[in-house]
């Protein structure tokens, strides 16, 4: 059995540094397995988040060799024996080791008006596959916040006070495009949501483990919607009556 060398960030708010560990490699091993090995055999105080170990919950986000990734989905064999560096997400305040304070994301979510169907539209609903298919993509998000981590707007000083970030553009797109939703979030997007700060660099799309087309399918259509609502109110109104309120279903 060969060993892998891992450089893992250890530290807290007061500072920290990389520490080196040797971990025996087994077939198919992922970075999270290595972290668990360290916890169980070398240092039980090494902190990281994880839940499912199957790329379904979005808890185990970290920067592996500088790239934001899910540790449970990152195979060690791809690094071909060279050392692997694991650091916490850089966009959020550090708590300890690989754990960061992501609570800001939950506060943002709270600001977004939830799904709101018409009061008298109580279902059961008919919604046709073609009406809902494109929304499934947005609903796939596992809230790993890797896209938030990589977005240069959020990484900049005070960025989180200007822009909600790609994750929440995906969230809002899922709400806005729901055939049964009745509220508009255009004002929010343009204001506190800060959609104007996104300059479509597409870095977020590249890291999304769920392969959501964050810019093409969420952000760009939302930008168009905001433009419509502000600069072409007639078109917006028309769409509200034709497009959103009356999908083929009832």
């Amino acid at each position, binding site marked *: 059995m060969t060993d892998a060398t891992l450089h893992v960030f250890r530290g807290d708010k007061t500072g920290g540094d990389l520490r080196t560990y040797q971990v025996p490699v087994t077939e*198919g091993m992922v970075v999270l397995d290595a972290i668990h090995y360290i916890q169980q055999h070398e240092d039980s105080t090494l902190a990281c988040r994880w*839940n499912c170990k199957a790329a*379904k*919950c979005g808890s185990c986000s970290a920067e592996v060799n500088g790239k934001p990734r899910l540790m449970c989905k990152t195979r060690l064999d791809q690094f071909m024996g060279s050392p692997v560096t694991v650091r916490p997400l850089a966009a959020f305040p550090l708590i300890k080791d690989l754990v960061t304070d992501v609570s800001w994301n*939950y506060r943002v979510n709270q600001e977004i008006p939830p799904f709101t169907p018409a009061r008298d539209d109580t279902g*059961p609903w008919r919604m046709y596959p073609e009406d809902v298919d494109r929304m*499934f993509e947005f*609903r796939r998000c596992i809230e790993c916040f890797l896209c938030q981590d990589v977005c240069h707007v959020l990484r900049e000083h005070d960025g989180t006070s200007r822009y909600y970030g790609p994750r929440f553009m995906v969230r809002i797109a899922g709400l806005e495009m729901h055939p049964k939703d009745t509220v508009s979030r255009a004002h929010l997007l343009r204001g506190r949501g800060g959609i104007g700060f996104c300059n479509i660099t597409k870095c977020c799309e590249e890291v999304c483990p769920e392969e959501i087309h964050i810019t093409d399918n969420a952000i760009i259509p939302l930008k168009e919607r905001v433009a419509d609502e502000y600069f072409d109110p007639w078109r917006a109104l028309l769409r509200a009556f034709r497009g959103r309120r009356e999908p083929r279903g009832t």
Partner: protein
Amino acid sequence: MADWYEARRYDVLVIGAGGAGLRAAIAAAEAGVKVGLVCKSLLGKAHTVMAEGGIAAALGNLDPNDNWEVHFADTMRGGQRINDYRMVEIFAKEAPERVYELERWGGLFDRTPEGKILQRPFGAHTYRRLCHVGDRTGLELIRTLQDRAVHSGVEVLMEVTLSRLLKDGDRIAGAFGYRREDGRFIAIGAKAVILATGGWGKVYKVTSNSWECTGDGCAMAYEAGAELMDMEMVQFHPTGMVWPPGVRGILVTEAVRGEGGILRNAKGERFMQTYDPKKLELSSRDVVSRSIYKEVEAGRGSPHGGAFLDVSHRGAEYIKKKLPSMYEQFLKLADVDITKGPMEVAPTIHYVMGGVRVAPGEGASTVPGLFAAGEVAAGLHGANRLGGNSLSDLVVFGKRAGEHAARYAKGVDGDPRIDDGQADEERRLLLRPFDSGSTENPYELHAELQEAMGTHAGIARTGEGLRAGLDKILSLQERAERMRAAGSLLYNPGWHACRDVRFMLILCEAIFRAAIERTESRGAHWRLDFPDQDAGWGRKNLVVQRGDRGMTVSTRSVPEVPPQLARLLEATA
């Protein structure tokens, strides 16, 4: 109130933010009381997020003959009739409305061409009944409920572990624990507490469950004096991943078989034809798990001790649409392309049917003010749960527990008193691993208890094995008094593991003690020394409770199914 802990107060405290806890919190908040919701992880990461195949409800969208009566009969038969029929009746009747409610709250399911919710077949369900979104139904459920909850005025405390229920005399007064982030202690006063803490699959090594599934809620309820029931009933899901070692146990959803997947042994035989020629791969989970086990025992297993599951005949496009995360999971983690060839699978611990005994329909435990819903509660699934019945369980009984806890809380005069003595006792217990005399590594104890469970309380059990397992657990309990933690209280997994292990050891003991008593085979409980069902045991549930001198086991009569419902069981048998 002391100054060494953070103090909070709610009318209703919900412990757990999986499907059951979220639905309970929403219901309680809607009833107009102040609700606090606590979870060990971040919000939206609870075990429920991993559910794949779907949520069972007799909507009859594809098979118009389906209705609550057939769902009732399927569930009772799946549970080998030691379920509480009153819970099953409520469940089968209310599940459809709970599913439509999820849709009204923004949840999206796959659709039929006519625009209705699509339903897929699953093991031992007579009709196509599982509403689903590809193979990520749990994510849809949890996201929908999570968004509803945070906009219903529920206050959420994330990454808090509660480790002791506080009492004021006989009744519940709240709960005590710590913040994972920095180890700060926290005491939450409440008139009513709802346990929605999920199961304890982590007492086994090969499991589909996440790290959270250490059964804290059930163990806390036991320590607070509540009755536990059906603890011997632990479900093996027939299909978990087996290779590579790091992924052993990760679930391969039953939807693979629902979508036409075929099981074969090493000789290429479709062995389910021998064991259940009628239902084949879609037989109930206990039957399929035992069949795989028998094939392996007979020397016809796959290279890593399992069976082959093949769905590749459905074609790449179909598989990627209906089973996207399975496709991804095998490709990324096992280098297997399931659109081209079979996957290797073996049984994995998946679900616990047993748990806190509750009043049917209300969720009230035997401790006044303490409620339970979801996987931590017992009674609905009997000796074996049908796939898809858990997610509907969460929303049906989550809602009911929330409503009943709110009603109970409104009837409580004044706030129950927090006893600082109890809080201090728990603090000392929590801090003990930092004492100088502590030597035992919690991870080692965890591995040993898993070993004991796997060896002695696995698919095939014997009286002798069970007694040996119990002895091992009792000696581990002794060693657990001396568990050691290093470092500080700041986000310290090794320290957190110490309390987890103590909880798990209680549940292991309960599983062994109940399994020793049940001298028959029924559902998930298969005794090699008592291979047949026994009519006498078919009328009894086993109840575990804390006594003056340790754990006691007694029996209770299974509530008798009244004639008009019993007819349903005969009619479709």
